[in-house]
């Protein structure tokens, strides 16, 4: 049966075509045509995704799992891997927001990267990233997902250190790369273990085998824990979260696309995709996922309170929100995890793009202590940013409220302590976002408009206090940057409609995702009344967080310095701990290894070299340079082979 779903290969094909065209012609196209081409490719990919979505809706509920195989990739005996795409509700949901948000961010980048030397190179990387991400999401087997997984990692590395001439950016890229490697190791081992256990890497076959033959709980647990290591690396969960805040060194659209909306959710996607194996593992495994998520969420939220770099606040906020998703996965609320992933993609991309617009307007300054009063000067940016703020703070009816409330409800069903801690995290979220918004857009300016002070006056004015403040020329961004902001703001406001909790009929996303979850979705153990109470508590919590932020940062009831503790500002000293460990015992171990390397390994290598050199001196006389002697050698070899064949054949 041929349907629109067969077009699924087009989704990654568009960005791939963009990469190839831009690699060949990027420089010749130049600015801004290279950007428009890349954006058009993402737009095409989005349209293809919508078509596939329509095709998938046309199928019956339980037939919404379609594998489109393009060709055999690795036909190696028992290990047969195809290049095939799995179009099911989960992957298409992911693909929809990856391509949709991706296209908007591509459009935004045309404005943001204006005048950059590497303009076309930037769009090659962005398109390559989109291609890898779509392979990750749409691949119908673990190996293809791994391919995309590594691809997005490589693109992330390339884009974090995009302005690599600055050493800090280059080392931030390296840090992300190395930290991710730890996670990738987990994924790789999990993949091999899954192949050993189930005899296949294809999702469909793994789950079929699991259903038919079952699996030992300990094996399943091992696979899931290893996958969790991989997911924690990619999705920046404790203790592998340290790379994400540093990743903010990249251009802001990159932070929005890769480090907020799409790539970092890959871990959540992977765990959701493997839900039957989680269901088959020991009970402590989901609990582990849950507590890792909770710990990360709470820790990152406290850190975000004390950050002064606008992008760092958003980065820790992302880490925290990803923690929410892990809690959801751990408590079996896969739908809530994906729901929060989607709404988070909208509002966090919006917030990052808004931050980028502010940075753009403030001549590249990222410190919120030197912002203030920008609402008047950047009207569109500030309006849309406020929408994103209300969404992430969990104020109804903005999208963040619905998804966060659902996670909180499941957490309550799982464990009351967990719920309480998660609620505190949510309140903190509202608090630090309020702080960010108030310090950026409201209050009195902590900068001076550059126009008021002609250059000649500078010397005379340095005496006054006001001139200690930096000179800025805030301005609203071009339309290529504001249009994505407005669209994302709209989405951040209404995306909650996709999964309303009132009756099971309006639980659209939940019903849609059912075929991908094989009935492993958890169920709330309590009635609607409790849910209402929980929702009201959550609303009070978020409003409380917002008003607490307002109290501190507008009314100055409490000195902000007492809240922004240095311990928090330095991110709980996790980085220092890692550095100290690696610098102390780690370093000694490395020195030992170096010694071993120099004496034993290098010794062996050098001995080999000497041996080869001596043998070569002896053997060089056999190289006569006479082509006919060489031909004779070949002929003798051919005859010898013939003899060997004949004797082997049994004559």
């Amino acid at each position, binding site marked *: 049966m041929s349907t629109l779903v067969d077009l699924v290969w087009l989704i990654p094909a568009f960005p791939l075509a963009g990469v190839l065209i831009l690699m060949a012609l990027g420089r010749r196209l130049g600015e801004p045509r290279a950007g428009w081409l890349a954006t058009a490719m993402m737009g095409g990919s989005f349209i293809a995704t919508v078509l596939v979505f329509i095709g998938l809706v046309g199928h019956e509920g339980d037939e919404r799992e379609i594998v489109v195989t393009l060709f055999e990739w690795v036909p190696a005996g028992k290990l047969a891997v195809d290049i095939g795409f799995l179009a099911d509700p989960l992957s298409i949901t992911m693909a929809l927001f990856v391509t949709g948000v991706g296209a908007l961010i591509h459009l935004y980048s045309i404005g943001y990267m204006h005048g950059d030397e590497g303009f076309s190179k930037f769009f090659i990387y962005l398109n390559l990233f989109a291609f890898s991400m779509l392979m990750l999401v749409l691949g119908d087997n673990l190996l293809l997902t791994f391919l995309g997984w590594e691809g997005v990692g490589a693109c992330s590395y390339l884009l974090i250190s995009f302005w690599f001439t600055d050493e800090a950016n280059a080392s931030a890229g390296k840090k992300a790369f190395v930290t991710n490697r730890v996670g990738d190791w987990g994924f790789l081992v999990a993949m091999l273990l899954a192949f050993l256990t189930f005899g296949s890497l294809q999702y469909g076959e793994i789950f079929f085998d699991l259903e038919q033959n079952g699996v030992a709980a300990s094996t399943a647990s091992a696979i899931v824990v290893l996958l969790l290591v991989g997911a924690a690396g990619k999705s920046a969960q404790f203790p592998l979260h340290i790379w994400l805040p540093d990743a903010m060194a990249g251009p802001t659209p990159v932070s929005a696309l890769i480090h907020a909306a799409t790539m970092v959710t890959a871990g959540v996607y992977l765990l959701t995709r493997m839900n039957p194996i989680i269901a088959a593992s020991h009970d402590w495994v989901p609990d582990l996922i849950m507590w890792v998520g909770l710990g990360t969420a709470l820790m990152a939220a406290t850190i975000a309170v004390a950050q002064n770099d606008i992008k760092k606040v958003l980065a820790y906020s992302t880490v925290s929100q990803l923690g929410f998703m892990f809690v959801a996965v751990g408590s079996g609320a896969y739908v809530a995890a994906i729901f929060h992933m989607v709404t988070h993609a909208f509002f966090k991309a919006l917030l990052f793009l808004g931050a980028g617009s502010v940075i753009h307007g403030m001549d590249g300054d990222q410190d919120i202590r030197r912002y203030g009063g920008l609402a008047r000067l950047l009207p569109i940016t500030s309006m849309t940013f406020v929408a994103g703020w209300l969404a992430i703070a969990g104020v109804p009816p903005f999208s963040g409220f619905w998804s966060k409330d659902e996670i909180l409800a499941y957490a309550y069903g799982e464990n009351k302590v967990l719920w309480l801690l998660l609620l505190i995290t949510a309140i903190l979220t509202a608090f630090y976002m309020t702080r960010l918004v108030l310090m950026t857009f409201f209050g009195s300016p902590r900068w001076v408009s550059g126009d008021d002070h002609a250059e000649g006056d500078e010397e005379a004015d340095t005496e006054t206090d006001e001139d200690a403040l930096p000179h800025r020329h805030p301005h609203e961004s071009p339309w290529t940057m504001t249009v994505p902001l407005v669209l994302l703001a709209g989405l951040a406001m209404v995306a909650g409609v996709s999964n309303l909790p009132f009756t099971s009929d309006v639980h659209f996303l939940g019903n849609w995702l059912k075929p991908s979850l094989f009935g492993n979705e958890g169920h709330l153990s309590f009635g609607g009344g409790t849910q209402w109470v929980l929702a009201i508590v959550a609303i009070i919590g978020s409003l409380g967080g917002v008003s607490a932020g307002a109290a501190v940062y507008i009314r100055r009831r409490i000195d902000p310095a007492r809240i922004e503790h240095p311990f928090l500002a330095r991110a709980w000293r996790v980085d220092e701990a890692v550095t100290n460990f690696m610098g102390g015992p780690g370093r000694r171990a490395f020195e030992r290894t170096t010694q071993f390397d120099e004496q034993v390994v290098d010794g062996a290598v050098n001995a080999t070299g000497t041996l080869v050199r001596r043998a070569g001196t002896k053997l060089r006389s056999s190289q*006569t340079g*006479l082509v*006919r*002697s060489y031909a*004779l050698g070949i*002929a*003798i070899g*051919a*005859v010898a082979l*013939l*003899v060997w*064949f*004949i004797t082997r*054949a049994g*004559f």
Partner: protein
Amino acid sequence: METAVFIVCAAIVLAGALGVVLARNAVHAALSLVGTLFGMAVLFLNLEAHFLAAVQIIVYAGAIVVLFLFVIMLLGVDRLEDLSVEPITGQRVLAAIVGLGTFGLAVVFLLTSDIGARSVGTLTRDITDIGQYSNLRQIADVLFTDYVYAFEATAALLTISVVGAVVMSRRMARGDEAQEAAEDD
């Protein structure tokens, strides 16, 4: 009839081949090669490979050998090769051993196995019967379906080899040539 044709053609083929190897003059060798190629084409006809028989004449005898003759003319290779001396010690002896080894082993292999025992074309279905298509049609069917990538690759190969030949046989600028000649000596 087939036997007679085979014997005559085999004699022509082997005589031509010996001519190539033994002729002292390169032009004679090229002409002997033509004889071998013609005999081979007739053998192809005997084996019902009609298309290849035609290609053999057109490409090999028509194009390749003519190319050889052109190069011989271009270079004026009129010095005869002295076949009575062999500068490399043991080359001829070893060559003879290798030749005997190749031929002997191939014959031994053929005679002891059953691949050659049956009459040609009796093992399985006759090619010419498959759907009553012509030989050309059959080749085309396979060539443009199963082997289409290889076919396209040969197109690239030919283009590249033509470009390569042009680049290599191009005359260098006078200065360069003089310089290189100086380096040689």
